[in-house]
């Protein structure tokens, strides 16, 4: 067991992950909009960050010395909203109005939502913004950290690599990028649409430290974050995940990347998911 966390922490985070999964599936069942596949694959990553790693405070969401988080894969917003609501950044009732006019739970993250540090939604931009934030902490000689979560598909965007180059050049050891490496993008397997491999070698070549983690093991993720904090260069955590994780009929199937109001979400199979959870 690590110096940085206890068995109780791990159990707490695992339970919290289940709870958040349930909340976001309720959101999807109700709204029939959004992106369940990637929202489910990132659950443990965001839970580890928001319930153990990040120094953020719902009472003072704009605290200048807070850690920053950028959800570069902005379509994973439901998980982030479920967590921010649970942590008290805004009322849980907001979740029901996801994607509706005036809701704090906008389709993709927007600055008007308490707890959101950066707009996102257009893929490939988050690392760049996060690098600017980390540079600001360096300039101000402040010790807060910047974390950014990227999808694996969005690594196909050239801007990611512009930002990777700049982060290493400016020695942003206060910047941690996490890749939700679920291997799928909207129309199929990442490596069949446009391979991003060899992934660790690419990041190393750009001057980054690389740590690999099991993206559904909070323990593995906490270890990776603690390793990242000690590095003298920006660090990328390649978190191996399963798209649709936890909802067995969605797991590892690209079709569940996104829902439309017409998507046939099988109600009995949704219930099957929840029943199976309760049995455990």
């Amino acid at each position: 067991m690590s110096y940085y966390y206890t068995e109780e922490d791990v159990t707490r985070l695992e339970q919290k992950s289940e709870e958040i999964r349930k909340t976001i599936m309720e959101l999807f069942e109700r709204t029939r909009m959004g992106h369940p596949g990637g929202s489910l694959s990132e659950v443990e990553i965001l839970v580890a960050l928001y319930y153990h790693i990040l120094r953020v405070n719902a009472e003072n969401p704009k605290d200048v010395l807070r850690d920053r988080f950028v959800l570069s894969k902005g379509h994973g917003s439901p998980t982030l909203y479920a967590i921010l609501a649970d942590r008290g950044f805004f009322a849980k009732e907001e979740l029901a109005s996801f994607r509706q006019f005036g809701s704090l739970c906008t389709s993709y993250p927007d600055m008007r939502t308490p707890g959101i540090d950066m707009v996102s939604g257009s893929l490939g931009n988050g690392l760049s913004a996060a690098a600017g934030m980390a540079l600001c902490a360096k300039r101000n000689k402040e010790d807060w950290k910047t974390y950014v979560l990227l999808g694996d598909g969005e690594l196909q965007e050239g801007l990611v690599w512009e930002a990777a180059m700049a982060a290493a050049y400016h020695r942003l050891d206060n910047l941690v990028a996490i890749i939700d490496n679920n291997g799928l993008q909207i129309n199929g397997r990442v490596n069949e649409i446009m391979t991003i491999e060899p992934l660790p070698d690419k990041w190393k070549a750009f001057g980054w430290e690389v740590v690999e983690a099991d993206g559904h093991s909070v323990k593995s993720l906490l270890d990776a974050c603690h390793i990242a904090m000690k590095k003298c260069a920006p660090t990328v955590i390649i978190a191996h995940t399963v798209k649709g994780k936890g909802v067995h009929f969605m797991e590892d199937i690209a079709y569940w990347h996104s829902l439309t109001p017409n998507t046939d979400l099988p109600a009995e199979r949704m219930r099957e998911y929840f029943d199976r959870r309760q049995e455990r």
Partner: protein
Amino acid sequence: MLLPTRIVFGDSIIEHAGHRDDFVVFNADTKTCHLENFGAIYPERAYSFGIAEQNLIGAAAGMASCGTKVIVATYSVFLCMRACEQVRTYVCQPGFDVMMLGTHAGLLTGTEGASHIAVEDISIMRAIPNLTIIEPSDAVSARAMAGKALDFQGPLYVRLHFAPVPDVHDPKTYRFEIGKANMLTDGEAEVTFLVTGILLGKVLEAAELLKKEGIRANVTEFPTIKPLDEEAVLCAARKTGAVVTVEDNTILGGFGASVAEVLAENHPIPLERIGIRDRFGESGSPDRLYEQNHMTVGDMVSAAKRAIGRKR
């Protein structure tokens, strides 16, 4: 010595940096406005981003989100097209305090040629919500703008020029205020020139030529392109009943188009537009390019007469 607006603006920012520490400079690897030298003077306040404009703007948004004003400088074509989405979604949508200097705007860029001459930047940038756009007309106004631009909070696009032009303003009396047009001549007249940017000097020449022919023309300068000083547009429309817009940008969706929108909705009167005629720039002298696009002093005189003629 005549200096281009880009150099005067950049040098003024460097001068201001001597007594204020509330901004940083992010540099692309270009020679634009002397801010590429900012790091040599203030190493703690300049950051290099290389030839990567999207990241330049994305990172500026990140820095600005944490409360530090960022100034970026690059060619206007790269700023408003290569990095258009970062300007739109990451700077303007959240309203971050990023001052974006786009140089080499308009046909005055001349020999740099089609790829480097921004002919459509006003049209692109004015479509983006939350973005304020300003453009000097000479070295005097460029200098005055720099201080105001530093005081301004929020997304700002400063449209700057490659080559020098003679000063038209008197530094002792010139005043610049964001959002306000300047009436340079405001008497009894038959037509008003509404102009933004570097062609102001030519417009004043055109007004002089008209005067010699017994035709009185007023001149109003719009150093702020967006938000447009609609009151000044309507004031000119009511007073002279005909206007000619002048800009070194395409007439499609640019400054003249924004004036046309205001007039069509509020006070329709004869309007003529001087600007780039739906074509790219070319490698050549600015005068040759202005001629090709019917943007010479003579063309301005003719346009004024046409506008007046259409009143009857």
